């Protein structure tokens, strides 16, 4: 079935126009160049119709609404608990399922404590001490990483490729990403981001949506816990610095 969107309508228009132009040019006017122009219109129409089928049914406004609702709920919990510690993005091997973010209730734990997979619960104990309690939450990165076709590799080039594929090809939220890795620090530059970061408490804890996605993908790629050290957005560029916990 055809989905009704701009691509489909443009494709149908070009299909009709291309058929009329090529057939009339070939059989009536006997003009090769006009027939060729009609064929090029037909090729373009098929491409438009195929791409029109891949456009999601949900509008960007509805998606934004759902994203904001989810973030607001997590923000409320974080603010009510007065958490100031930075979230630790864990790979799927440490969460017995999908990659998630651990928000320690007291202070940031050393990575040596995070050696075994945490249970799939909201409140988890990650260490032996009674204070080693945190919230294990699902972030935008958790869902976004499920969209990748394969697990990203642990080199900067592979991470860059995965992030560009995610941001540009699947989500359409940025024009590309550049990754630099140096001594357990990953610096990611995102070109022309189309999601704005809000200066809220939860953003300081979990990072913005883009940083959350970058951290989740990096944690999964390196198979190590990752934290967001810095996040800046200015002049059509978003710079994110991550630390891989070893």
């Amino acid at each position, binding site marked *: 079935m055809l989905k009704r969107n701009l691509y489909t309508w443009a494709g149908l228009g070009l299909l009709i126009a291309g058929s009329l132009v090529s057939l009339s040019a070939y059989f009536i006017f006997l003009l*090769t160049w006009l027939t*060729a122009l009609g064929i*090029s219109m037909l090729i*373009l129409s098929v491409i438009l119709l195929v*791409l029109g089928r891949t456009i999601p049914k949900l509008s960007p406004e509805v998606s934004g609404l759902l994203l904001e609702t989810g973030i607001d709920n997590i923000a409320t919990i974080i603010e009510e608990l007065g958490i100031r510690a930075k979230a630790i993005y864990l790979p799927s091997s440490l969460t017995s399922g999908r990659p998630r973010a651990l928000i320690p209730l007291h202070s940031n734990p050393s990575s040596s404590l995070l050696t075994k997979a945490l249970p799939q619960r909201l409140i988890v104990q990650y260490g032996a001490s009674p204070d080693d309690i945190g919230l294990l939450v699902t972030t935008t990165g958790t869902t976004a990483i499920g969209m990748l076709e394969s697990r990203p590799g642990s080199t900067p080039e592979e991470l860059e490729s995965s992030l560009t594929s995610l941001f*540009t090809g699947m989500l359409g939220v940025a024009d590309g990403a550049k990754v630099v890795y140096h001594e357990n620090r990953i610096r990611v530059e995102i070109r022309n981001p189309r999601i704005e970061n809000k200066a809220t408490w939860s953003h300081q804890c979990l990072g913005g949506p883009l940083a959350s996605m970058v951290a989740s993908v990096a944690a999964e790629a390196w198979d190590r816990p990752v934290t967001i050290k810095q996040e800046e957005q200015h002049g059509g560029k978003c710079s994110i610095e991550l630390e891989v916990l070893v």
Partner: protein
Amino acid sequence: MKIYNSYILIVAVLLLLTTVILVATGQNSLDIYYTAYVIEALIVTELYVYFNAKARRGLNLVSTILFGGFLVIVSLQVIKILA
């Protein structure tokens, strides 16, 4: 989707430019026009590596159909030469 728009725009501009150039050089064979279109469409599609899986599957189908048309043209030419 920004990537879709840029892909469509590039393909459209390339096809139009090819038509103009081939008309200017006095080409009168429909086979040459079609072959040039197919090659350009295939190259641009291959260069856009960051398409999502669904779009890639659909474009692969389009590429297969276009390549099928190209093979038909080549077969007809071979038959014409052998005959």
